[in-house]
């Protein structure tokens, strides 16, 4: 009970995210209409009793598409972030632990990837692999792991100076054991926070891609592609773009607020101080 009182941010934002996840997982059962069912008798309707959020230009129910879009956007966001964090953590931890020349080389590679504009790389990779979920997933993961690697490496560099590492070496523990059982568990706080911030970054990237037309292809729905479809009719049918944008915004705010709150709670270095 006290946890709820002292951490309202975590509860509210976490709760919202859970609701969105629930909607995403149960979309096929929750949605009143299939996401691709066209009904040419009721196109471009505003919100009403039959269609809670209106219909698009092909007569598809917007609310249902929004639910399926939640599925798509959340799936891409979460899995991309997970993969980026997984790969980035291993890369960064190994690089930081080894130090010296190997660390130098590995970080040069990271710098090179980091210094290229990410959307540029994503667009190029997406075009190479083709549109669709796999392309976006690969492109986004390949670009976002570098941020994670840098952060984790920084943490590992600090952690390996602690005496318990020296003690473990003295007892004869092999490097991989030290890394896995002693150092990585201590990065957990930073790791969780990084993951929580990577997810909205991935969702943002996916929706931006879909919006320019290089992401999820029709008839599949993602919040970004729905925004694209609604954008050209914005002046006369604003509901088409308002609802996906609103949900996108709220979800991302929730993740960012959650990340901030988790960072206050978990990251030992970051303290929100007042004067």
């Amino acid at each position: 009970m006290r946890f709820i009182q002292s951490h309202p941010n975590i509860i509210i934002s976490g709760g919202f995210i859970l609701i969105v996840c629930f909607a995403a997982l149960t979309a096929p059962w929750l949605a009143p209409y299939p996401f691709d069912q066209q009904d040419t008798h009721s196109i471009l309707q505003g919100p009403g009793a039959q269609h809670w959020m209106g219909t698009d230009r092909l007569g598809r129910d917007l609310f249902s598409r929004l639910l399926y879009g939640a599925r798509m956007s959340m799936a891409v966001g979460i899995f991309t972030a997970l993969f980026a964090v997984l790969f980035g953590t291993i890369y960064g931890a190994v690089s930081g632990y080894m130090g010296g020349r190997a660390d130098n080389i590995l970080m040069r590679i990271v710098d090179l990837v980091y210094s290229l504009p990410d959307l540029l790389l994503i667009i190029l990779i997406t075009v190479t692999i083709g549109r669709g979920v796999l392309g976006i997933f690969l492109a986004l993961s390949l670009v976002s792991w570098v941020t994670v690697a840098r952060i984790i490496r920084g943490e590992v560099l600090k952690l390996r100076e602690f005496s318990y590492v020296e003690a473990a070496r003295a007892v004869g523990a092999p490097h991989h054991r030290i890394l896995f059982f002693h150092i990585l568990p201590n990065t957990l706080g930073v790791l969780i926070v990084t993951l929580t911030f990577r997810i909205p970054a991935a969702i943002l990237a996916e929706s931006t891609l879909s919006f320019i037309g290089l992401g999820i292809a029709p008839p599949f729905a993602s919040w970004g592609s729905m925004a694209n479809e609604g954008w050209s009719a914005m002046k006369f049918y604003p509901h088409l773009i308002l609802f996906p944008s609103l949900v996108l915004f709220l979800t991302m705010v929730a993740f960012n607020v959650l990340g901030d709150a988790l960072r206050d709670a978990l990251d030992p270095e970051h303290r929100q101080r007042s004067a």
Partner: protein
Amino acid sequence: MIGYILRRLGWGIPVLWLVATATFVLMHIVPGGPFDQEKSLPPEIRANVDAKYHLDRPVLTQYYFYLGDLLRGDLGPSYKYLGRNVNDMIRETFPVSMQLGLWAVLISVVLGIGAGVVAAARPLSWMDHTGMFLATAGISLPSFVIGTFLILIFSYRLHLFPAALWEGWRYTVLPAVTLALLPMAYIARLTRSSLLEVLHKDFIRTVRAKGFGERQVLLKHALKNSITPVVSFLGPLTATLVTGSFVVEFIFSVPGMGRYFITAVTNRDYPLIMGVTLVYAVLIVVANILVDLVYIWLDPRMRIKNDS
């Protein structure tokens, strides 16, 4: 100092070469050439076209041609817009993108730092909470959402600013604000946390004990010392603005390089893709070097580290 600059510039060359090669490789991995989507040409004409653009040669040969042209500064002709040179196309659109980008940098840095300072000056006040809430909102809004929202309000309802194109100073407002919002929010948060940290340091206590007013303490002493994370962010900021410009230029129909990039990629217009990519890469490398120089100038401790 000069040695440092030269060394950094030296590092830029392999980066650019890598970018050029990576773009080349990616483009040629994709099945389908630039002329496959046209109505099918008679074989003789097809052979002529291929020969002209070196498409009939093995890939490595094409690569050598490509690098050779690049070193001469020639970005080649566009495959899609026949008769037009990529150099010319970029020369026409680059100033527009540059203008948009610079305005966005100005807005985001000035307003971002300003907001951060106001928030840190009175921590946990309503100004702080509002400011930081808006900042969190700012980093959660995709640019197409902001752009749409701004257009709906300021163009369609209030008729204050035009919604598209680029024909006068009024046209720059909405796109620049849209582009600047995310960096501005980020900078505000960064400035606030950095400033709060610095305000706890002992030397600030000394300055206050000397009798300086709070405003001077804040602006003159604390701010300079807390600006370094923001400066570090300016490098990636350039990259963010560059990529953000794709979407913003698309939304507001700004005649810049960004929309060329997107259409070129879908058209497989190789020279145009390479040209735009390289220009962006050069921009980012130069920006990063400049940022490092500013960093060294700001923090004298960095000079010792870097001269070794």
